[in-house]
C-alpha cells in the first residue's frame, strides 16, 4: 500500500514521478559521517526511516521497530546508509494522503546493529521490508512539513545536516536489568582485560561494560559488546589503573 503513495529515488537518477501533479516531493540527505550514539560511524547498509507524526512529536520506537505511539508511523525504512551518510534521496508522496495533508515528516537514522564478540552487523529489514530490531534512533536535521500550495501540489523541501542525539528504543517493561555474576582478569593477545560474566540478558538488546574509578562506574564504555539472550554472556573491558569498578549497560 505504501508503495502506491510513496516513491523513493536517488536524486541523481532519472525520475518521472517528480513531474506528476499528484505527487509532492521532499528530498533529504546527510553530509556525513553520521554517527551512532557510541561515536562509531554508521555502517553501510544501516537503515534510515522516513517517519510521519500527526502532532510533530515522535515518541520513538520500540526495540521491535514498531512505534511507541501508535499514531506515529514509519512510512518507509530502507538500508540507505552508504559511506557513513544518507545519500541524497527524493521522496515523492501522493498528495491525497495524510502524509501531505497533515503532520510532519522527518528522517531518522536507526541503529539496528547486533553484536557478536564486539563485531557489529546491521540487522536491517526483513523480506517484507519491516524492521525487526532497532536499538536506537536519531533524528536527522529538522522535521519538514510537506505542504501543497493552492492547486499546485509541488511543494519541495530539502533537509541536510548531521544526526542528533540518539534515543534508545523502548524495551518491554518486563526486561530485567542485567546481572554481573562473575569478574575475572584475563589476558587476550597479551593485553590485560577484566572479564565480566553477565546473566539476565535478552536477545533484543546489546550490552557493553562501563568502567570507572568509583562505584558509580561512570567512565568510558568498552568497545566489546554483545547481544544478549544466552544463559550468560561474557564481556571484556581493558584493565587499567583508572578503572576498578564496572557495570553492564545497554549499548
Amino acid at each position, binding site marked *: 500500500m505504501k508503495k502506491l503513495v510513496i516513491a523513493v529515488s536517488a536524486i541523481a537518477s532519472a525520475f518521472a514521478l517528480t513531474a506528476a501533479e499528484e505527487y509532492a516531493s521532499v528530498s533529504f540527505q546527510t553530509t556525513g559521517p553520521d554517527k551512532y550514539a557510541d561515536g562509531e560511524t554508521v555502517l553501510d547498509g544501516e537503515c534510515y526511516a522516513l517517519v510521519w507524526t500527526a502532532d*510533530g*512529536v*515522535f*515518541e*520513538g520506537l520500540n526495540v521491535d521497530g514498531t512505534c511507541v505511539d501508535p499514531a506515529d508511523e514509519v512510512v518507509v525504512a530502507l538500508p540507505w546508509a552508504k559511506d557513513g551518510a544518507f545519500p541524497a534521496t527524493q521522496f515523492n508522496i501522493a498528495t491525497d494522503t495524510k502524509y501531505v495533508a497533515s503532520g510532519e515528516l522527518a528522517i531518522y537514522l536507526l541503529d539496528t546493529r547486533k553484536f557478536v564478540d564486539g563485531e557489529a552487523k546491521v540487522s536491517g529489514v526483513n523480506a517484507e521490508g519491516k524492521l525487526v530490531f532497532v536499538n536506537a534512533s536519531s533524528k536527522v536535521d*529538522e*522535521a519538514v512539513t510537506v505542504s501543497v500550495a493552492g492547486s499546485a501540489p509541488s511543494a519541495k523541501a530539502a533537509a541536510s545536516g548531521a544526526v*542528533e*542525539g540518539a*534515543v*534508545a528504543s*523502548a*524495551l518491554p517493561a518486563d*526486561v530485567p*536489568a*542485567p*546481572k*554481573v*555474576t*562473575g*569478574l575475572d*582478569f584475563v589476558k587476550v593477545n597479551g593485553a590485560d582485560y*577484566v572479564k*565480566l560474566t*553477565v546473566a539476565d540478558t535478552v536477545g533484543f*538488546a546489546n550490552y557493553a561494560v562501563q568502567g570507572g574509578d*568509583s*562505584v*558509580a*562506574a561512570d567512565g568510558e564504555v568498552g568497545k566489546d559488546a554483545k547481544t544478549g539472550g544466552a544463559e550468560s554472556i561474557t564481556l571484556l573491558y581493558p584493565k587499567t589503573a583508572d578503572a*576498578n*569498578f*564496572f*557495570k*553492564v*549497560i*545497554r549499548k
Partner: protein
Amino acid sequence: MKKSFIIATVLATASAFAGQFESNPVGLLTLSSIPTTDNLKLVAMPFDGYAETSGSSVKVADVLLTDGLSENDKLYIPTGTKGQYNRYSLNSSGEWVPANVVTVSGATITAGSGTPPNDAAVPRGGAFWLETTATSVKLLGQPAATMEKTSKSVSVGYQLLAPTTSEINVKVSELAGAQKDLVILANGTRYQKTASGWKNVATRAAVTDADVIPAGIGFWYKAAAAGTLSL
C-alpha cells in the same frame, strides 16, 4: 521554542530509562597499606558476593584474589566463639583448604579439634585475618547497593569489625561508642572514647579527621557497653 521543549522531553525519558537498565556494579579494591603485625593483616569485607543477597555471608574465595599470595598463606575467620578461628591454608592451586580450628590467646595460636567448613565465609562489614608476606591484598566483588554507612550492633567485649562499604573511610571521631570503648588497629594504634571524645591512647591527643579506619581494613572494637555503630 516548541521544538526545544520536545527534544528535551524525549532525551530526559531516554536517560531515565538507561538508568534502570544498568547492572549491579562490581569492582576491585586494592589494599596496599594494611597495618601488619607479624605478617598478619586484618582485612575488611566491603563487598557482597555476586550471587549473594546484601548482608549475607560472602565466600572469601569468591572475593579475595590469590594473585600475589603464596602457597601456605593462612586465612583466619572468626567462628563466633571468643578467640576461636577457622584456619585455612592456600594450596598450590590457589584454593583455600580447610586446615584446623585454632584458638588465639595473645601471640599464642593453639590448634583445637574440629575442621572448618569448606567455604570460608564472612559477612560484609565483617573482617578476617590474612597471614601473608604480600604487601597488598586485592578484593573483588559487588559493592553495597548504596554507599552509605550501615548500623552495626556491638556487644560488651571484643569484636572484629570493618567498614561496610568499599568507598567510605570511617572517621574515628564519628563513631558513637560509649565511654571507655576501644578501637584497636592491627598495627597496634589504639583509640579510646573518653568524656571529651575519642583520643589516641598513646599520645592522649584528641582524634582529628586524619584518624580514619580505611575501607577494606578491619579493626578490633572493645565495647564497654552494648550499642550501635555506624560503619
